[in-house]
Every structure is written in C-alpha cells, then in structure tokens.
C-alpha cells in the first residue's frame, strides 16, 4: 500500500543522505521524496512517498525514527490528509493545437507560464492522479518535457507534524 510520510529532520549536512541511504541499504521502495527548509531554520521538512506491505512500512517508520537526525515523523496515511504535487510541462503548441491546449489547461486549472511560437509551458498543481490525467490528455507527441515536484502533504484538522514542546 502507498504511504505518505511527513518527517521533520535536523537541517544538517548529510541528514538527507541518511534517509536516502536507509532506503537503498534496506531495499525499501521510494516513490518520491521532497525536502526543503521550514520556518525554523534548524529543521527541514521531508515528505516521502513509499509503498510496501504493512509489515514493511512499519519497519520503514521504525527505521526512520531510529535515525538520530529525525526529530518527528507522522504517517499522513494514518488519518485524513491532503497532498499536492506540482507539474511543469512543456508542450509543443502550434497552429490550431494552441487553442486546444489552452482549453485543456484551463479545464485542469493549469496556468500557462511561458509561451513561444512553438510551445507552451504549463504549471499545474494537484494530487498525483490529476497530474497523470492531464499528461494523458496531452498526447505524448506534444510533450517536450515533464518536471514533477514530488508529493508534499499535510494532515487535515488539528493533527500536525511539528516539533514537540520542549
């Protein structure tokens, strides 16, 4: 099963490779991984998407928690959560196709952020399936480049993955 895990990590050199190294050393799946600083400069936020049996994901959570640089970990999949991913896609857009692509982008609430005579670059945000759907409707022959950010997520309601009060 797919799990989205939110991790607060010491913002130290090497912390990211501890996480990545754990996954390769133990043979766990990693679907996507995003990491960026937080409002507290000493912490980074990582959102990690993985998959495996419940026993494997249980081990993944425990092994991650064992890393000294991991300050807090929440498996968002344990409750209600929201996730988003950003897609930047460059598609060839010439002749009568330009209008059609613009319409498709509007339907998906995408934004065209760069235009040339031959191509559009579209920005689109949503969950993974929405991005997949958009890529599917833009025929592959039109696609010049696809850049996806990887998933970020947050729990619904008052659940947080914030540091414990000291």
């Amino acid at each position, binding site marked *: 099963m797919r799990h989205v895990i939110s991790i607060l990590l010491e913002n130290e050199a090497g912390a990211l490779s501890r996480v990545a*190294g754990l996954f390769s050393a133990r043979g766990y799946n990693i679907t996507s991984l995003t990491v960026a600083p937080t409002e507290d400069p000493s912490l980074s936020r990582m959102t990690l998407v993985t998959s495996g049996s419940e026993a494997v994901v249980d081990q993944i959570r425990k092994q991650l928690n064992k890393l000294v640089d991991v300050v807090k970990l929440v498996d968002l999949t344990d409750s209600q959560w929201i996730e988003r991913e950003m897609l930047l896609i460059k598609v060839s857009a010439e002749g009568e196709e330009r209008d059609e692509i613009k319409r498709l982008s509007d339907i998906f609430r995408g934004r065209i952020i760069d235009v040339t005579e031959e191509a559009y670059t579209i920005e689109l945000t949503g969950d993974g399936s929405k991005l997949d759907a958009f890529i599917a409707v833009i025929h592959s022959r039109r696609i010049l480049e696809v850049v996806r950010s990887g998933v970020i997520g947050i729990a619904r309601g008052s659940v947080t993955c914030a540091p414990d009060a000291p």
Partner: protein
Amino acid sequence: MSLELTGAEIFVRCLRDEGVEYLFGYPGGAVLHIYDALYKQEDIKHILVRHEQGATHAADGYARSTGKPGVVLVTSGPGATNAVTGIATAYMDSIPLVVFTGQVMTNLIGDDAFQEVDAIGITRPCVKHNFMVKDVRDLALIMRKAFHVATTGRPGPVVVDIPKDITAHKTTYTFPKNPTLRSYKPVTEGDSGTIRKAAELVLLAKRPMVYAGGGVVLGNAAAELTELVRWMGAPCTNTLMGLGAFPGTDPLFVGMLGMHGTYEANMAMHECDVLLAIGARFDDRVTGDLDKFCPNARIIHIDIDPASIQKNVAVEIAIIGDARLVMREMMGVLNASGKRLDGPALAAWWSKIETWRARHCLEYDRANTEVIKPQFVLETLYRLTAGEAFITSDVGQHQMWAAQFYKFNKPRRWINSGGLGTMGFGLPAAIGVQLAHPGETVACVTGEASIQMCIQELSTCKQYDLPIKIINLNNRYMGMVRQWQEFFYQSRYSHSYLEALPDFVKLAESYGHAGLRIDKPSDVEAALKEAFAQRDRLVFLDFITDQTENVYPMIAAGKGHHEMHLATDRELA
C-alpha cells in the same frame, strides 16, 4: 575570561572528563596536533596498534568486556577506511564505540586532498550516528553527544570526523553537562500494562521457553534474567551473543540455539507454547526457516530497539524497554500474583527436554588418540580455566566449538563477532580485554586462517606486555568454508586450503613471544597448563587438529529447528 585551549587540547580534556582510560589509535598527518597534545599528558593511556582495524577491534573488546565505551583515534583517509571493518563489527553487535577520525583541513575538503576520504559518507551505513566538527566551539559538545549516543538506548559505534585545522583553533573549554538531542530520546521503562499482560501469558505457559540474546549482556541484566528463569523453572537458551547471560552450568540452561545450537535448545524452541524473547533479534542464523519457526508458540519480545520488534517474526506481546528494568518489573508482577506456572505441565515438558538432551548432540570422537579433535582442546581449555577465563574468538568452526564447549557462567566473558562475522577480530579484541582486566586469564580461540588477518597485533601485545594465550586450532583449512563446500558443493574445496602457512611457533618467537606446537591429543592438557603457568607472557599454542572435523549439530539453510543434522550419517528428529 578563562584560558583558551586548542582543539587538540580540548579533545584530550574531553576524553579525560568523560572518564576514558584507554585510547586505541594510530597517528597520521591529520591527527598530529592531537598526538602532540596526547604526548603532553598522562591521564589517557594511548595504545598503539599496528593497523587501524586492530584499534577498533581492541576498543570493541574493551567495551564488550567492561560495558564502557571503547575509544579510537585514527587519521584521515586510509586510517578511516581501515577502521571501517571494526566499526561495522561493533555496529552489528551493538557495541558502544566512539571513533575519532582525522580529516583534512576544512578548506581542502572536497578537493581530493592528500589522504582525504569522505569518512562521514563511508561510515554512515555502519554507525549509530556520526558527526563532523566544523567549528572548534562545537567540539566539546559534539564529543559529549557522541559518547551519549554511543552508550545509551541500543548502543552502537559513533564516528566523529575532525578536520586538522579545528584541532589547532582555540576556544575556551567547559565540559558540557547534559548533552541533549531533541531527536534522540531512547525509551528505558517498559509499558506497565504490557508487562502485566506478558506476565499473565508467562503464567499460562505449559511449555515455556526463554530465548535471551546479547541485549541482556549489553543491558547488564544477567542477574535479572537468572532470577526470572529460575522463578519460572523454564528452559533457557542463549544466542551466540548472549552466552553468559544465563549461567552455562545451570541445569535450566539448554545451550546455544540456532544453526549450530544444541538439539535440546532447538527442539524446545520448536515445541514450546510460550516463548519469552529478551534482548534478541530473531537473526536468520537463530531462526532457520521463518515459516517453520516456533510454530506452536505465543511470543513475547522484550527489546530496547523498537525496530527489532516485528522485524523478522510477528510477536503477540512487544515490550520496548531496557531489559533489566522490564524484567525487574515483570518479576514484581509475577511475585505479586501469588501464582506459579503449572507444575505438572512443567515436569512433563522437562521430561521431554531430557529425552532430547539424552541424544548428546555435542558428542564427538573422544577416544581418538591419533589426531587432536578441536572440541577436545576447547573442553580441556574450559576445564583448566574452570570456566572463568575471558575467551575472545575469531570466526568459523573454532568459534562455534568454543560457543558449544566453553560454559560461560558470567556475562562479558565471551567476546566474539556474531553479527558481522569478522575474521581477524579475536586477537585485537583480546588486547582490549586484557588491558581492561590485567590480572585475568584471556584466551583467544582462533584458527590459522583468521589469526593471519590481524597477526600484526602480536607486536602490540609485545609492546604492552599482554599475556594473552592464543589457542590456534590449525586444521590447514578455512574450516567453515571447507565444511560448506563438503556439504553443499560436493567437496570441491575451492580456495579454502592454505598451502603456505607460516611456522606459527617461529612467528610468535620473532614477535618476542613464546610458541608451542602440539600435534598429539595426549599433549593437549600439558601444553595448556604450561601456557597458563606463564602468567607474564603471551603464548601462542599451535594445535595441529583434525582436518576434516565438522561442526555439529547443524541446521542447513531453509530448514526448521526440528530438522537438525547430528552428523552426515545421523539425522535428528
């Protein structure tokens, strides 16, 4: 304004304030400032090894035999890479080490400078944690954190990488009081409700079994284990790492379990109805085929590491906590219950176990007067040292025979590389053990293949007058490799035969030690006595043993505990 000290001086002060007795190391360019600071003090005794692998194993032997952290100092580049095997060895067996690696100057890092290696990157998968010091003002706190992380929770090695310029920079020094890491808070107390549930399950057992591992030794919980097992009246087995956690001569002890464990231990595992696992991690060499593992048992697992629980085997009751505290609390609950285990059921269980014991699974050809049986050497060693010696071991057949035939009544006396299986461990480990226990008998059980992997440490033994006794079981083969090739590769002995062995007696003598070669069974006892009588010098005993002896019993890969082989022509169960 207090006096400013250099990083090198702070390093030494910090070790002193941490209570470090011995520093195992080898100098080199990146750590010369530190070595200069060491030269100017007398608090820390530096032990100069002959190879950095030896330094880590010696510190490891010191740690295993004392419970205190082992401390290592090596230079950058090859100093760090040579230390890696020892660090990985300690990591697999959860041994507290703090290893300081020198590093090139901060401004050269990343430039492929002379003797530069990414020590943090290389050691990352085999340390509990590692740190690089980037500012001399952080040095003392990082060192304090390193000792804290290495010695608490599930112990393990911690590496601290120190660039050379940091050791020259100056700052004021205060010993940090409480190193707190917001992200590191190991659990110690077990959950009381779960402990009560576990106690209730223990009381329901008709065929109880206690399976205790290295965690009991590391957690200084041998006394608590012994009390609990005796209260239960249950059979107790120890893992390779746990030997000595429960007295080896106690009638409740059924021997080691697993691949080369006893028939009675493995059969009791297979047929028990309640299994109490303490400080053990269900390693593949212990469990055999997981699908056939303890098919009738409800399992309780006590471990300080949450990640060890439900990793290989699904358990019904999991208690995360310090083995000593958890067992004390469980003992309290059991005593307060006013109940005991079902006496008649227990008696029936024991009579079954006695029938397994009666198979004498460790029997070997004792009558042989022609050739020395390795088991005979170890039995004699056990008898002559009254089970009181510290025994270090290398890896292979001799290791298994030592584990089977030497009965350890006390913890921290059996020092071997269980998890990583590092050949070359035994001799340097014995250095650390002998330094920590100057008046005690320390014997290194080894083979002619293993001993050559760190033979250079004979020189260290001479320098520090360490009267270690080396029991070399010399069968001119990599015995365990040969055994597997005999069983599973139709006796094609591919590169497991050592055709150009040194004369070990002369070799020992050239290092300044005594050497004895023994090739007759009738000389074994006299040679051991002669060696142990020489209390002030190292004696290298080269026993020429049976070339074809195999370790039995054995569970082959993919088999269950009930499918042991006693000998090639005799199958158990």
